[in-house]
């Protein structure tokens, strides 16, 4: 162990117990902080600018110290972001509920029940994520238009459900596989019905995973832009569509733009911070824990 301690400077890539005063280690710590702050800086700058007056947002060099104001947020909410927020909320929550309702039983069938050709079904689900959605937008538009569902938030609910279902199936399946088989067998030995053993044995084990799956689906649904911008207009438009209005504006608008972007991004950033430990598992379809 002493030999290890002597070489800790070289072993920057491993988590090892290190000596208290270690110049190399301190430098790496400082570097890590600089990188972290650097990546976060555009977000920080967005939030900071949102509290400025437009005059203070247009200075060269940029202003770091100023008298904060809530004027921009008042303008954003006064300027009608609320219906967009409500549409986003509805599409996000409803699609996530549907994803969990459809995806959990499917994941159960594909893990604990060992349906035939499980592998093929799983790859079918993942392959739907690989198909470029842009190739489907034309017929989707034609059909949605035909049934009169353009600019209807339910259209987004259905599409977001289909968009997130493969992720949920793969992710939930990886949680089901963690349920010890012996537990289920013990429950059925004791004469518990399948439904009861699911509710009382399996559900408590997978519920944290279910929550994480739901949160990740919420992030994707909230952030979705392509369907929203092509299939909605005044009635059903979501928050990302609201932000489009800012790219055509002329004149002084940095501060109000930043306030709008902050309001749009805040919900998912918070959800993502909560779910950060399961983020990789969701995005890698459960392949990486």
């Amino acid at each position, binding site marked *: 162990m002493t030999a290890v301690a002597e070489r800790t400077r070289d072993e920057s890539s491993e988590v090892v117990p290190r000596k208290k005063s270690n110049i190399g280690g301190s430098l790496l710590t400082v570097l890590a902080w600089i990188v972290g702050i650097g990546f976060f800086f555009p977000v920080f700058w967005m939030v900071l600018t949102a509290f400025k007056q437009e005059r203070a947002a247009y200075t060269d060099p940029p202003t770091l110290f100023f008298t904060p104001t809530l004027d921009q947020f008042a303008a954003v909410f006064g300027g009608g972001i609320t219906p967009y927020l409500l549409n986003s909320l509805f599409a996000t929550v409803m699609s996530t509920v549907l994803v969990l309702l459809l995806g959990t039983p499917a994941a159960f069938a594909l893990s604990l029940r060992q349906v035939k050709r499980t592998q093929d079904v799983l790859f079918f689900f993942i392959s739907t994520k690989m198909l470029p959605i*842009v190739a489907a937008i034309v017929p989707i538009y034609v059909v949605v238009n035909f049934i009169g569902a353009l600019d209807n938030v339910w259209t987004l609910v259905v599409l977001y459900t289909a968009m997130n279902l493969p992720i949920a199936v793969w992710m939930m399946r990886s949680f089901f596989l963690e349920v010890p088989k012996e537990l289920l067998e013990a429950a059925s030995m004791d004469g518990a019905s399948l439904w009861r053993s699911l509710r009382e044995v399996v559900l408590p084990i997978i519920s944290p995973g279910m929550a994480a799956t739901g949160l990740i689906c919420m992030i994707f649904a909230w952030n979705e832009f392509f369907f929203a911008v092509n299939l909605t207009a005044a009635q059903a438009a979501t928050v990302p569509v609201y932000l*489009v209005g800012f790219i055509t504006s002329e004149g002084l608008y940095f501060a109000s733009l930043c306030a709008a972007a902050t309001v749009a991004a805040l919900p998912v950033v918070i959800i993502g911070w909560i779910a950060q430990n399961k983020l990789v598992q969701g995005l890698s379809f459960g392949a*990486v824990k």
Partner: protein
Amino acid sequence: MSTSEKSGSTAVADPATKPAKPERPAVGPGSRRDGWIRRGPLLPALIFTIIVTQLPFLFTIYYSTQSWNLVNPGSQRFVGFENYVTVFTDSQFRGVALNSIVLTLGSVFIAMVLGLAVALLLNRTFPGRGVVRTLLITPFLITPVAGALIWQTVMFDPTYGLVNFVLGPFGAGTTDWISSFPRTAIVVALVWQWTPFMMLLILAGLGSQPQEVLEAARVDGATGFAVFREVTLPHLRRFIELGIVLGAIYLVNTFDTIYMMTQGGPGTASANLPFYIYQRAFLGFDIGQSAAMGVVTVIATIIVATLALRLIFRSFSAAEEV
């Protein structure tokens, strides 16, 4: 699909669920009813996915054989492969396809290199590690439309933007990044967004390293760099591969960043396939041609992605379930 029950055998050859417990009771061979009960919970999700995601592609194939412009309602007629000929002889389409490849591979590659470096930096205990990690993943969480809007305005603005302020000492002056270097600007925004994902993936890989092997290598007197090259990097290989494939799948569909930052411009200089097809369909109203482009895109994606994904997921399930 794939729910057809041809053989009565219950011995399902299935690599992903390989630890088939021998004590699992063998169900009645060939019992159709039992089979349906087993797959019952799967069917709603499967049928829903097939209807919403697969049917539109059949329509796309049909539309691609039609000459149909929404501006002329009565213009729809069958033209066979004419749209495909037009697509392949369209020099703009070829340029846009090349853009797609450059933007996707460029962003994925840079994000992976940075993500690997940042992950190594974070894979040690230091004060505030959790905070730094949280700061780092924020660009990935933020609504891409909002992120792109921030880059397009307060970051890349020629006069008041933060980028030119920071690069000022290096002679950036008032470079208009968005119109002079649109593809670079887009790659910067995409790399900013996707480096955190790569970092998280690599961190998961670093965390799953067998500690005994690392210890053994060190006891044998290997230097830190040798340990990294001989032990850590081979272990990380499949995580890197997975990150590249997943990143490419997500990034090849990039639409919002381009829509917000450059609108594909100037001209089609920074348009990728999704944006170009969108332009043709919703601004040009040319259903037939955009459908043909869609079919070409799908075929290209399927060829690349199916092979890569199958290989990588097989290697993961093999490694984890032994």
